Structure formats: C-alpha cells, structure tokens
C-alpha cells in the first residue's frame, strides 16, 4: 500500500529530513512510526499525502507513483488518506460538526448522508454532544478528537496520524488506539507517528523507527496483513 524506494528529502536550507528510506507497508497493515522529534516522522507522513515531495526516490501509495500523479488527481489521493494532524488543523470559523463534515463535502457525499456520518464519527470519539460548539471552546484533547473524527469520517483506505494521542489522557489514548485498531481490522492501512513508546509496546504492532532521517528499524510485516 505504501512503498518508499530510496527516498530522501533535503530541505532548501540544507537540512536533511529523510535519507535513503526504503519501506514497504502492506495493505491493511498497522504500524507505529517512532523516533525523537526531528527524526523525520512528520516529513515521512507529509510525503505520503503529497504535502511535500521527496528530493530523491519514489513514493507509491495505493498503487500510484506519487511523482507521476497529476495535479488534478491529488484531491482524489487525499480523499483516500485520512490524516490526524499534530496541530489539529481545525477551522475556527465553524462548528465542530461542520469541521468534521468537510471531507464529506469535498468528496461530494450525499447531503442527507453527511449528517449521519458526521454524527457517527463524533460519537466514536465521544464528542457527539459538542457538535454545535466552535472548536475554540474545546480543550486541546477534545480538538485532537475532532481531528480524529474528521480523519475517519469518510472511511479512508489509509489513515495517517501524527501524534494523535499527544494531548490525551492515558485512558482516552488507549481508547483511540483501539478505534484505530478497529479500523485496521476492517481493512484500513494505519500508520501512526508517536513517541509514546509504552503504548506502542502494549499494542504490539509493527514499529518503524527513525533516527535523524534514517531508518533504524523497519519492523517485520505482520503475517496476517501480507497481501
């Protein structure tokens, strides 16, 4: 599902974000991406959803070589990738409900269907009673959960999460991770960047470790998810 071939990313200021990454994630696999901050976790996730392009090498997602994707196809790619952003990326000029509805709106979902799906997603993160509020009035943890609901609302094929449990208490973190696992069992490929190593070990999924832009441990592809 996600393939990195000799991928390097150098930033214009000379900083090396990623160096010669080779990585293969099978369809329906779940993996954690760990490493210190600045190790390149976010950069790697950005390359997958074309927020950035590699300086060298090839990234393939869902069978598409991203370097050959035309501009007009990028939205279609992103609709298949749900992303939980580290900084939430919520819009403060609209309600929680409308924030979660954006991915459905842009994908042309049936209007009657949107309300149902948004509420299902909000229910899943336990924020159903907050749908009318503005994200500004929510706590950091709640905003994070709104972000999670938005990432999952259109049931993407790939889920990327950048520190999704950074602001959550342990119970809620575990719960959210369970949700991710749930989705994974339903066929969604999940890649979670985190430095909560305790949680990673408890969950027992494949762990990919980055250090200063280099791949230290690629982890083994778990048997059940092999294509």
């Amino acid at each position, binding site marked *: 599902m996600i393939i990195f071939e000799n991928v390097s990313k150098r930033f214009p200021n000379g900083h090396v974000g990623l160096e010669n990454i080779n990585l293969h994630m099978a369809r*329906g696999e779940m993996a954690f991406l760990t490493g210190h901050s600045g190790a390149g976790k976010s950069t790697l996730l950005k390359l997958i959803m074309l927020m950035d392009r590699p300086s060298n090498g090839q990234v393939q997602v*869902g069978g598409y070589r991203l370097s050959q994707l*035309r501009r007009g196809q990028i939205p279609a790619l*992103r609709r298949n990738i749900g992303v939980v952003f580290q900084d939430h990326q919520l819009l403060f*000029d609209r309600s929680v409900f409308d924030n979660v509805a954006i991915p459905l709106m842009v*994908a042309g979902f049936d*209007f009657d269907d949107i309300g149902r799906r948004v509420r299902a997603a909000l229910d*899943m993160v336990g924020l159903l009673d907050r749908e009318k509020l503005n994200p500004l009035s929510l706590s950091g943890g709640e905003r994070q959960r709104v972000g999670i609901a*938005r990432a999952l609302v259109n*049931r993407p094929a790939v889920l990327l999460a950048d520190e999704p449990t950074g602001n959550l208490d342990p119970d809620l973190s575990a719960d959210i991770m369970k949700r991710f696992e749930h989705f994974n069992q339903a066929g969604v490929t999940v890649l979670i960047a985190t430095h909560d190593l305790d949680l990673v070990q408890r969950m027992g999924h494949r762990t990919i470790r980055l250090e200063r832009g280099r791949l230290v441990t690629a982890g083994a592809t778990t048997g059940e998810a092999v294509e």
Partner: protein
Amino acid sequence: MSQDRTGPRRNEMGREGKKSAVTTWRKTPHVDAAAARTSSKSQGKKAEAPRKGAAKNGKVSEAGRWSNLWRLHRQFGRESLQRLLATPAASLMTVLVLGIALALPAALSLTLENLKTVAGNSNVTSARISLYLENQVSEKDARRMREDLLKDSGIAAAVYISPTQGLAEFEKYSGLGDALRLLDSNPLPGVIEVEASDSSPLAVSNLQNRLKRVDGVAELRVDSEWLKKLNAIVTLGDRILTGLSVLICLAVLLVVGNTIRLLVVNRRDEIRVIKLVGGSDGFVLLPFLYSGFWYGLAGGVLCWLIVACLWLAVSGPASDLATLYQSTFRPEFPGLNMTLLLIGGGAFMGVSGALLSSWRQLRDIDP
C-alpha cells in the same frame, strides 16, 4: 504514464483516474459494521437504515448528484452572501465603487440613446430654412418675395420678419438691447422663414438649392443644421462610450479582483485545510466566485438606482430643452433591457473578476 494522460482526452482521463483511484484502494471497501455498532448506541434505528448515496463512493445516482450539486451551490451562495453581509461597511464601499463606476458608462449610454431618438425624430427634422435678405431689399419687395415663395409646392409656410421686428425679438431674447442702441442703424437684415413641406434630407437640399438662386437672398441657413451636428456628436459619443466602457469594465474587474484577493488571503487557512482533506481547486474556488457574483450583482443594482436617480433629476430640464426646439421628445427611462443588461453584466463581471484574481492564487496555496 503521465505523457499519455495529457492532450485533449485529459479531462476524461482525469475523471476516470479519480474514479479508479477511489474504487481500487482496498479490498474491503467499507466498515459499516463497526460504524453501525458505534452509532446505533446514540441513533437507534436510524443507523440501520440503508446507506444510500456515497456509502460506496461513486454510486450516487445521477439525479442525486445533481441535487447534491444544487444544494452545494445554494449553500455556497448563501454562505458567501452571509460573509459579505458580515462586514457591511467594507462590502458597501466595494459595492459603491462598482455601482458608481458602472453608472458612468450606463448614464452616458442612456444619454446617447436619447440623443439618437432626438436625431431620428421627424418632428424636429421638419426643416426650417431662414433666408437672410440683402440690405437693399425693401420691405415691400420682401413681402412680394414671400408671396412668390408660397407658390412653390415645396414650401409649406413662409413668414417675413422685418429688421425692426427682428431687432425687437433680439432685444427681448438676448438681453443685449442696450448694446444695440449704441449702433447708429439697425444691423439686422430682413428674414423670410420658410418651412419645407417635405422634410426628407433630399427634398430639403433641393429646396435649398432653388432658394439660393432667388434674387435678393444674401444667405440662407437650414435650421436642421444642428441635427447634423447632433448626429456627429452622437457618433463621437458612441466612440467615447466604447472606450469608456472598456476602461470601466477593466476597473470593475480589478476592484472585484482585489476584493476577492483579500478574501482569499483572509481565508488561507481554511483553503489549506480543505485542500488537505481532498478539496479540489474547483471546490475551493466556488465560494469566491459566489462572492464575486454577489458583489457584481449588488453593484449592478446600485448602478441601476444611480441611473434612475440621474434620470429623475435630468428628465424635467431635458423636456424643457426639447420644448425650446419645438420637439415633443421626452427622455426615456432605462427600460427592461437596460436594467437586465446592467444587473446581469454586473454579476458577470463580478464572477469574471473573482475568477481572474483567485484562480492563480488558489492554485498557489499548495499544502
């Protein structure tokens, strides 16, 4: 792979590509079981209802897609209008600028239309020819000349105005009587005013030629001369209108464009987020087109109001002026065509301005 997707078939391929990108992503396409379980807690039976529409992407029916599109447009239209009304002062300024700018060519065009009506009005063109007689022609001769002229079939009426009468009239209308009294003698010649029975330009010009040869006529002046001048002015006005319209259209495009550009700058974050979750360029563009549409529409309506006010202010004096020229002409109120043109044109220019300014800008917001 990328080469064969370019060229004229690009659009189809794009759509196909999108579809296949959506449908080939995973083997088990939906996770409804899990969703139904989670949502049934709160929503009871509703979650069990068959999921129509986008449950499996791309299976939205044709009618459903149109109705979705319609609702999307309605929502965007409403939202952009609300946004415009949320900053009434700023919006009013923009609309005022648009309205006033558009009112310039509109008012000029209305004036020209009315002048053209005047120029084509037969009542006014009924040609009068003034024969200025030579000084030595006595009053008695002049009266005889008038009798002779009346026998001409091309002449409907002839009136003799003696130098004394002429002087009296001149004093009355010009207010220069005192100046005239300084002169030793009456400088005015006798005049015979002739009205042609046929006012077509050819007949008038024939008559003119005949009258030129009459003995004792020093000079003759066709009263419809000013109509020719008016025609020339109208032609010139048309040119000026064209040039002015082009300039004003450019100005309107720039004003709308600049306003929309600021809107885009203000909503950069929103656009970024929408693009991050898969919004296409068209999707983020649409609200701004609607903003431009509303600005243009409001500008067009305002422009119409301004023109209507101008008309109300000017029509009275214009009628008076027309009466002085013995015309029954009455200035015409901007009609339905003009109204539609102003409002429709305003809206069109609003959308164009928005498109021109935001398209590039929105493409450049590339998360």
